[in-house]
């Protein structure tokens, strides 16, 4: 199921709207303009996800590629192992979310990284002790190979009951 031309046009309009300078590329400042993102606890991470490592700008194809993760999953897709995994499959969506946790890209969510996420989400309202207890418990629950970090497989397993196809999809991008 390919993305329709109408959707691409809509995304391009949005891209142009965000690109205040008209340079054809988005910079960090353009993303920061979006007011709601500033209020979002993990806004910085989301913005960071659009930029490939080392890159300073985002062009339109990259923009679409990142957003394509959030297209609704096509459940009737035949499981063809020769073709690469489509970018909006459940695994790809989970991988995208995993990379948002795993900032240093070592393939694991360490305790420090988890603590960082919790700190961002819960802000000033909790003590450091409580954060540590939560992080400890979370790792203890999910960590099956006892390496004190959550790997992608463990992450996937802890979310097996959540309907990711529904949760991580936006109708806009169908």
């Amino acid at each position, binding site marked *: 199921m390919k993305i329709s031309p109408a959707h691409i046009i809509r995304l391009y309009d949005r891209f142009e709207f965000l690109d205040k300078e008209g340079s054809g590329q988005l910079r960090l400042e353009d993303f920061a303009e979006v007011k709601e993102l500033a209020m979002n606890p993990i806004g910085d991470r989301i913005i960071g996800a659009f930029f490939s490592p080392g890159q300073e700008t985002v062009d339109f194809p990259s923009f679409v590629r990142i*957003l394509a993760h959030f297209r609704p999953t096509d459940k009737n897709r035949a499981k063809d192992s020769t073709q690469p995994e489509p970018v909006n499959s459940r695994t790809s969506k989970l991988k995208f979310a995993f990379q948002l946790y795993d900032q240093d890209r070592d393939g694991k969510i360490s305790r420090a990284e988890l603590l960082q996420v919790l700190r961002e989400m819960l802000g000033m309202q909790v003590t450091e002790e409580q954060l540590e207890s939560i992080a400890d418990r979370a790792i203890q629950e999910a960590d099956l190979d006892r390496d004190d970090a959550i790997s992608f497989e463990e992450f996937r397993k802890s979310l097996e009951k959540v309907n990711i196809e529904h949760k991580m999809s936006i109708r806009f991008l169908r």
Partner: protein
Amino acid sequence: MAELLGSSSVRSGRASFCLRVVGFVLLLVFAAAASASRDISNGTSKEPNPAREEDPHHRSNTTHHKKAFPVLSFNYEHVRTPFEISLWILLALLMKLGFHIIPRLSHVVPESCLLIFVGLLVGGIIKAIGEKPPILDSTLFFLYLLPPIILDAGYFLPIRPFTENLGTILVFAVVGTLWNAFFIGGMMYAVCQIEGTGLGGVDLLSCLLFGAIISAVDPVAVLAMFEEIHINELLHILVFGESLLNDAVTVVLYHLFEEFAHIGTVTVADAFLGVVCFFVVSLGGILVGAIYGILGAFTSRFTSHTRVIEPLFVFLYSYMAYLSAEVFHLSGIMSLIACGVMMRPYVEANISHKSYTTIKYFLKMWSSVSETLIFIFLGVSTVAGPHSWNWTFVVLTVILCFVSRMLGVVGLTYIINKFRIVKLTKKEQFIVAYGGLRGAIAFSLGFLLTNDKMKDMFLTAIITVIFFTVFVQGMTIKPLVDLLAVKKKKESKRSINEEIHTQFLDHLLTGIEDVCGHYGHHHWKDKLNRFNKAYVKKWLIAGERSTEPQLISFYNKLEMKQAIMLVESGSAAKLPSTLRKLPSCRIIPRISKGREEEIRKLLRANLQKTRQRLRSYSRHDLMIDPFEDNMSEVRFRKQRVEMERRVCFHLDSDSNFCERMRCRNRVNFRIRVRNTLLIPEGKLFKFSREEDIIR
């Protein structure tokens, strides 16, 4: 060989014992029912009672002939009504109990069917005796039996799946019910016009009225059935949500057609007014419920000193919401649901753990009793009610109900799937269609109709449809679910990981929607949460818990539950969050029994004193506990166990490194226990005595 015989005889002995118990209970049922019905049917006439009551007075006052002082006297009239009500309820519950004792029965036949069957038997017995069996009075049903079930459903409604599928549920509830009503009504009318069926007297409006009554899916029946088949959350919430929300449509259609059935014609203006009425009824009902819900939440903010009556506030505010909505002919069910949903998050943040448990169990208890009584009464009313059996009408009704439901669901799903992110498969559509049961609401609405020759025929048809759906569909849905391999409910507790990641994903999706400039589901949910946190919570939640983030309260609840569970299971296992610190060696040293006893006595004496200071048995002294009784109990037991272990280790002369490590970690552990079982404000609850004991 001998063992086989022995076991089989034991089994048959047990089975025959069960049968004997059940038989005895049945006898009790019939006897009491007979007497009860006689009294119920005569109960309205109160004149003989005063006369009878006068006599003993009179007799005792006269001194003309001296009678012996009556040591034992019999005065049944005095307690008749409460006695009979209690007896009915008690026997209904004994029946329910009986079903679960009989081994194979509850697996094959759903409980609702069994209860209706018992009702039939009871009704039959009463009729055989020659008395008039009591009928399910509509006032009794709508005012006393229905609200507990709906409140139970509404208060514990799973909000997340409900709001995610709200569009689908609304389409099924509103459009689906309308389609059902008009299709059945229209087809019935068309058939009635055919010569030879003898139904020429049924006009269009009566048919439509009948269609309106029979079209709505019944929440009681759906609840009773779906609870037993453990189907996955999506299907459950779809059918159940539909059964709750179609009440508004039913109310409007019923009143509309009832008004006009006598006048005979409907104009366009009336139809337009009907549409307006629908919006008024549904939105008005929700508004009334929301107001009462907020009132209830606000009241619960101040109940920290009177914990005992907290559950009552929840029940009374909800019941008032229902009654207030009924006063204005608004949808009482939607009002009740709105009240429960509105109240719940704030009330739960304010009330004590014990009140929460009380509310949960009382609601479950009342709804269970109501459900049982409803089904039994349905059975009795079947035997009792005046019937007018018309083959064409009844059979046609049953077939039409089934067909229109199937068509409606399939057609609507085709349209809905264009808008859904996760589409409904054919299997799921079938289950949704098959799960559309009719129940006591249809019967009561039919019973409310004014008395004309149509009413008996309608009632018969309604009862037949109810029986068909409950018995046939109810019994076959479980094997069908297994056959079609529909996903079952995943029985599991929510883990902290799920909670963290779900919140993370919420934020992520909101952010992505903002990047796209798309004001979707997540955007509005986020806005609502912010509004809630900024303004509403401050008003409705007491003290500092108003600023507590959801994750923290979830985590605390989890830890508390686990701690209570661990203590109850009697083991001294550690909490998971502290497990990683402890080494794996577990050598327990031996000391003499006498020494152990001495130590135990010492400990008990010390700990006992602190405990007495906290214990309070007076109802009015509940406020002395700064926080839950459970917590202090848990702490004590944990500390006692730890203390005993620690002292034992220290007394042992050759304490090796491992034990020393363990002891140090024990201290750490205790600090951790204290921390993790914190009240959210972060304050440590200090026992002054506690420090002495540790030292």
